[in-house]
């Protein structure tokens, strides 16, 4: 794919690229559909329930049915809402979530765009969604929605800082922002993976990532019990669906990113296991992260907002900063002794 991307662009090649894009889109949609199903199932098991089991075999078509329900649901836009922004917000939430998938390397051979600033690209695009959420909350002209939107904004910007800073340690180690290079720096067994030298960074990253996803225990923007769903309280039908879609696409993206940055990407945990294709290792790690996210949701209660902000600024940020310098100093020491 790499060589192919460096060649001159012809209509045929463009069509091929388009095909790749559509394929990814379909994969992602499929993932979302089944991630939701999976989440409900896992949560059910954790709470000693069964979870969805009626629609289709084992309830496998439950989410599909939900989607169709949303599709044919009547769409209402409140009179008091700001119509233009109200319509714009869900789309704006979705676009960056999907676009930031373009840089993720899935395996040695399966890589979409290979940008030299891949990590920066991801960080930059993912923060646009915040705007969409605030916009949705504001445009609804509803008190709950506004509160949800504002909370979401505060939370997202607060956790974006530790998120991007925790990655600096990884960048220091690999000396590149290219996600592929970052993975290549970790090849050769799990002891090379970044989560070991970067354990602080990894912890900060995971916590911040969960918060960025607005998932429990950090789901304050849409806390059903206090804000009756927060920023999307006025949304219905497919507009609502796009907020949800964006959220789950981000789950996909973050899981992939975690695998890439800290868990060695497609690298096998032991060099012996190299015979198993990289894409499978990647899928395994990816699935583990997704499961981990659901697991947290099933285990931890929602935090209070002041705890949330305090955690971000007073704990995670100093930790992330400390991590950067510890990493840098260790690198210097290593250089000095070798």
């Amino acid at each position, binding site marked *: 794919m790499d060589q192919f*991307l460096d*060649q001159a*662009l012809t209509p045929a090649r463009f069509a091929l*690229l*388009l095909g790749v*894009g559509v394929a*990814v*889109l379909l994969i992602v949609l499929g993932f979302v559909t089944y991630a939701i199903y999976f989440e409900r199932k896992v949560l059910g098991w954790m709470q000693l329930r069964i979870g969805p089991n009626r629609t289709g075999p084992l309830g496998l078509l439950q989410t599909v049915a939900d989607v169709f329900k949303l*599709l044919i649901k*009547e*769409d209402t*836009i*409140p*009179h*008091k*809402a700001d119509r233009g922004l109200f319509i714009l917000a869900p*789309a704006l939430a*979705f*676009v960056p979530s*999907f*676009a930031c998938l*373009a*840089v993720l390397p899935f395996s040695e051979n399966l890589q*979409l*765009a290979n*940008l*030299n600033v891949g990590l*920066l*690209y991801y960080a930059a695009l993912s923060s646009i969604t915040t705007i969409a959420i605030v916009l949705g909350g*504001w445009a*609804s*002209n*509803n*008190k709950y*929605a*506004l509160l949800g939107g504002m909370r979401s*904004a*505060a939370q997202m*910007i*607060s956790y974006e*800082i530790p998120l*991007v*800073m925790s990655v*600096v340690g990884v960048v*220091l180690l690999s*000396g590149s*922002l290219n996600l592929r290079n970052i993975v290549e720096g970790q090849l050769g067994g799990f002891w090379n993976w970044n989560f070991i030298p970067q354990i602080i960074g990894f912890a900060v990253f995971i916590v911040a990532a969960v918060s960025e996803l607005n998932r429990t225990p950090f789901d304050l923007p849409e806390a059903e019990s206090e804000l*009756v769903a927060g920023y999307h309280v*006025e949304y219905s039908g*497919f*507009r609502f669906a*796009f907020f949800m879609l964006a959220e789950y696409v981000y789950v996909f993206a973050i899981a992939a990113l975690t695998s890439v940055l800290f868990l060695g990407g497609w690298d096998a945990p032991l060099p012996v296991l190299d015979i198993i294709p990289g894409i499978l290792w990647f899928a395994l790690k990816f699935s583990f992260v997704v499961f981990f996210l659901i697991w947290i949701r099933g285990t931890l209660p929602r935090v209070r*907002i002041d705890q949330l902000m*305090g955690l971000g*600024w007073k704990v995670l*940020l*100093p930790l992330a900063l400390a991590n*950067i310098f510890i990493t*840098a*100093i260790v690198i210097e020491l290593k250089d000095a002794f070798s």
Partner: protein
Amino acid sequence: MYNNQYVLVAIFVALGVFLPVAALTIGRWLRPARPVDEKYTTYESGNEPVGDSQVRFNIRYYLFALMFIIFDLETVFLYPWAVAYGKLGLFALVEMLIFVSLLVVGLIYAWKKKVLTWTSI
């Protein structure tokens, strides 16, 4: 060099725009439209909505936005530094330490001034 990489990125963005547009358009054909005035009122736990909801934001939000800008911009400088760190040597570390410690002073300042303590809902 990377030109085509960005073509791919552009395709992703285009698809990202295309999907909502297409889905919502299809939805419009499929979904019913039976407008009743009550449907279009703002939800306020079943009560008649009181006043305008686009109220002034709490000042806290602004303070956090400010903090965000400061530290987000810090990372703007951290990233290039981290990428080039291997070539820069020890003194680059010292320089970055000076830079970051100045910002940490800012963080301490905000902390002490109770900016980081959330008091609103």
